[in-house]
């Protein structure tokens, strides 16, 4: 029995990757459903013994505990629902590419759920992130590409932060299993940096306010199958990462807990105000997700401030993530149904006030204010400053200068080398 469950654990992330291989996928009907089979069978096994894979990456493990069983069930439902919205298999290159990204994202998502160590989780979530970027931009319009650009930028920043987290963890313990790292970090001298980086990294990945700007764009422009996945894949996995990586229940950080709670409350207020002010039916899931992640942040802050609270209600965040995933699927499906059958009330669609463009508007305002300030108060200084800054910021000029320097170096390398050699000999003789 153990051998069978071990094989199922391995196949859960592996089968979607194998089926993403184009020659194989084209020979099998319904590859997206078949890819979910190991996970479905795994859910039916009452007790799964975790496996250690010392040969994998830097030594990894896979397993299913009570919490991850619920998450796996949620993912299976979401992926099945999304698979029903996929285009029929054909010869259209864009659709085939979309299916490849769909399967790779699925592999990363399922792998992250069954991973029992931080490096495994990080690797699977990277696969999921790059795959999801492909889903966002594949065959999408300008807005979808913009959503993808913001998402990938945040994801790269998040991966860099989480890589630092992994290095900090590795310097405190040689075991990278979640439990070992939690214990080691909570006993370390300064866990504040670790906790801050984990929070920032996964907030970027999950689109938690104020890193949410790709969410409304994604919901507005993505295909229905992708919109269905947003709640259960990037957002849920980001929140899961926080729960799994943070030493919650073992560490007391009241100051940080307070900041997280304030940010959570701010996220809720922002989402409500922005959602009411610039309502658009397709954006409703985005604001719902922001409110949900705001509540999650408040819970997380409470857990950081008082470990006893977390230990008492420690399982609730997992159910919250599962509920969020299911809830988002229902909301997106309902909106798809409303729009397909033209049930959407026209009055709430208000395109011109696009809340997702606030970054551009802020940047534009800063430029305008800067311009006015320069023109009206110190015109000469402004023009001189602008001219100097312009010449400094001309990348082409810099590149030409560096190219010229390299060219000179190439011409004079022999002479420079002899000169340096002479210098070294002089230093040597002087030292003698």
């Amino acid at each position: 029995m153990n051998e069978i469950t071990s094989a199922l654990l391995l196949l859960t992330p592996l089968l979607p990757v194998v089926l993403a291989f184009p020659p194989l996928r084209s020979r099998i009907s319904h590859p997206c459903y078949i890819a979910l089979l190991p996970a479905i069978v795994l859910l039916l096994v009452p007790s799964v013994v975790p496996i250690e894979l010392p040969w994998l990456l830097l030594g990894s493990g896979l397993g299913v505990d009570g919490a991850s069983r619920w998450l796996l069930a949620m993912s299976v439902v979401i992926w099945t629902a999304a698979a029903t919205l996929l285009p029929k298999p054909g010869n259209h290159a864009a659709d085939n590419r979309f299916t490849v990204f769909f399967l790779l994202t699925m592999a990363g998502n399922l792998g992250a759920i069954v991973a029992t160590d931080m490096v495994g989780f990080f690797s699977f979530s990277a696969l999921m992130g790059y795959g999801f970027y492909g889903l966002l931009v594949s065959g999408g319009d300008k807005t979808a590409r913009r959503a993808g650009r913001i998402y990938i930028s945040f994801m790269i920043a998040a991966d860099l932060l989480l890589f630092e987290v992994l290095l900090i963890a590795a310097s405190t313990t040689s075991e990278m299993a979640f439990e070992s790292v939690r214990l080691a970090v909570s006993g370390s001298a300064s866990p504040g940096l670790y906790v801050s980086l984990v929070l920032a990294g996964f907030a970027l990945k999950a689109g938690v306010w104020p890193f949410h700007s790709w969410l409304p764009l994604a919901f507005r422009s993505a295909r229905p199958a992708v919109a269905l996945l947003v709640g259960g894949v990037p957002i849920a996995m980001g929140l899961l990462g926080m729960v799994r990586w943070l030493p919650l229940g073992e560490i007391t950080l009241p100051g940080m807990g307070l900041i997280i709670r304030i940010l959570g409350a701010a996220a809720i207020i922002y989402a409500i105000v922005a959602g009411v002010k610039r309502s658009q039916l397709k954006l409703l899931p985005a604001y719902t997700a922001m409110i949900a992640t705001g509540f999650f942040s408040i819970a997380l802050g409470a857990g950081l401030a008082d470990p006893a609270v977390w230990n008492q209600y420690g399982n609730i965040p997992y159910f919250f993530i599962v509920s969020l995933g299911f809830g988002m699927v229902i909301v997106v499906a309902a909106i798809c149904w409303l729009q397909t059958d033209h049930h959407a009330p026209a009055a709430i669609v208000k395109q011109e006030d696009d809340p997702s463009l606030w970054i551009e508007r802020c940047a534009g305002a800063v430029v305008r204010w800067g311009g006015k300030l320069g023109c009206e108060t110190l015109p000469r200084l402004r023009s001189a400053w602008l001219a100097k800054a312009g010449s400094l910021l001309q990348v082409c000029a810099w590149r030409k200068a560096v190219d010229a320097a390299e060219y000179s170096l190439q011409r004079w390398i022999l002479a420079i080398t002899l000169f340096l050699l002479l210098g070294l000999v002089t230093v040597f003789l002087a030292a003698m």
Partner: protein
Amino acid sequence: MNWDAGLPLLIVATSLFSGLMIFFLSEKHVVARTTLNLGGAVFKLVLVGVMIWGVFHGHHYEARLPLLPGLDLLLRADAESMLFVVLSSGLWLVTTIYAIGYLEGSPHRSRFFGFFSLCVTATVGVALAGNLITFVLFYELLTLSTYPLIVHRETEVARRAGRTYLIYTITGGALLLVGTVWLYSMTGTLEFAHRGFVAGLLDTHRVSLIVVFVLLVAGLGVKAALVPLHGWLPQAMVAPAPVSALLHAVAVVKAGAFGIVRVVDDVYGVEATTKLGVSGPLAALAAVTIIYGSLRALFQDDLKRRLAFSTVSQVSYIVLGIAIIGPIATTGGLVHLVHQGVMKITLFFCAGNLAETLGIHKVSEMNGVGRRMPWTMAAFTIGALGMIGVPPLAGFVTKWYLGVGALDAGQEWVVYILAGSSLLNAGYFLPVLYAVWFKPAPDSWPDERSFGRFETSWALLAPPVVTALLTLAVGLLASAPFSPLQWARFITTLEYMP
């Protein structure tokens, strides 16, 4: 001569023999040339397999031939040399297959493959060198055998690149030779030893040892493309793609980086390097090179030139790992010798495929090419993501060990260099991947050739696919027995064990 002495000589001689034989073949003897090329490469790989098994089980392979009074031509197999021998022999086989497909129908193939084999002979000699003088001899042979490959196309640009290459490498070779002679005059020996052979001179010849260290590193730094000695590398990208692969992944830059590893580990030893205070400046130079190379790559539209600057940056990870001075970082540096090789060779093979099949040379011409050449671009994607350090690919394992090693050695600043470099790598590779997979393809390609139902010829397609799979395998199975990582850890254990 017994088997233990004969095996290192035989490994060097296989490619020397096939190279010399190929010189005497005329252009039309395609079958004979291909047989010699592939036969030599496969035979060498089998011999290397036998040797690596022996070294792992503690067997001692050494060939010693008298060279000068007091100096021998010494070939010796140790754990460190095997890492480089396996890399060069393995990738030589793949590159030979690629070169056969790439140069099909082009002139001067016998000359090309002759020098190609000599180049690998020199690389294996560099790897197996048991003392500094043997190292220098093969290092110079590498310079001389690579020059005809760079100017192979005989264009004015190629000749200019060749001249620059010669000026740089011969100057570097001269510095290396001066340093070697100076060192011999002080120590009376040049034989590599675990923990070096200069420790006894630290008190009496401190300044001389520092100057010699600078000379040796400057000489080797030319081939390792350390800034500001890197100028030849971006120019040399005018060479045919198999030569670029050889320069960037198998032989030349690796010989320089491997030489620096030898100087730090087996000439000076880590303790003496630390005590002389030269490891810090070396690490700083490597860090500058990493960032500078990435910044320059960011602005290149020529694909091979972008890859060349990427090499400048990536090879310095090896030097950085060694210069941090610590077992974990050294493991990271050593394993990158292999990891950078498989990733970069994949990228250059793909660049060659684009040029040969569609006439694409620039990044701005690559829009939508993923639909026309999906296998090639899938391999390119794996190579590029590996370079960025995306898990579970090879580059991630390197960056992991360098980062953990830096923290272990108390050098936190290295972590910021790694983060900055990863960000820049993403900056110059991800827009390419976006253009390849998501931008619409143009109506026609610059210079398209048809290969029937395949996207390109099998000889051009198989090598990048194989090396891309290797990129995935060496990362994913990093902790498996006999993986490059495990071998690098084996070397480090020998170097640092009490």
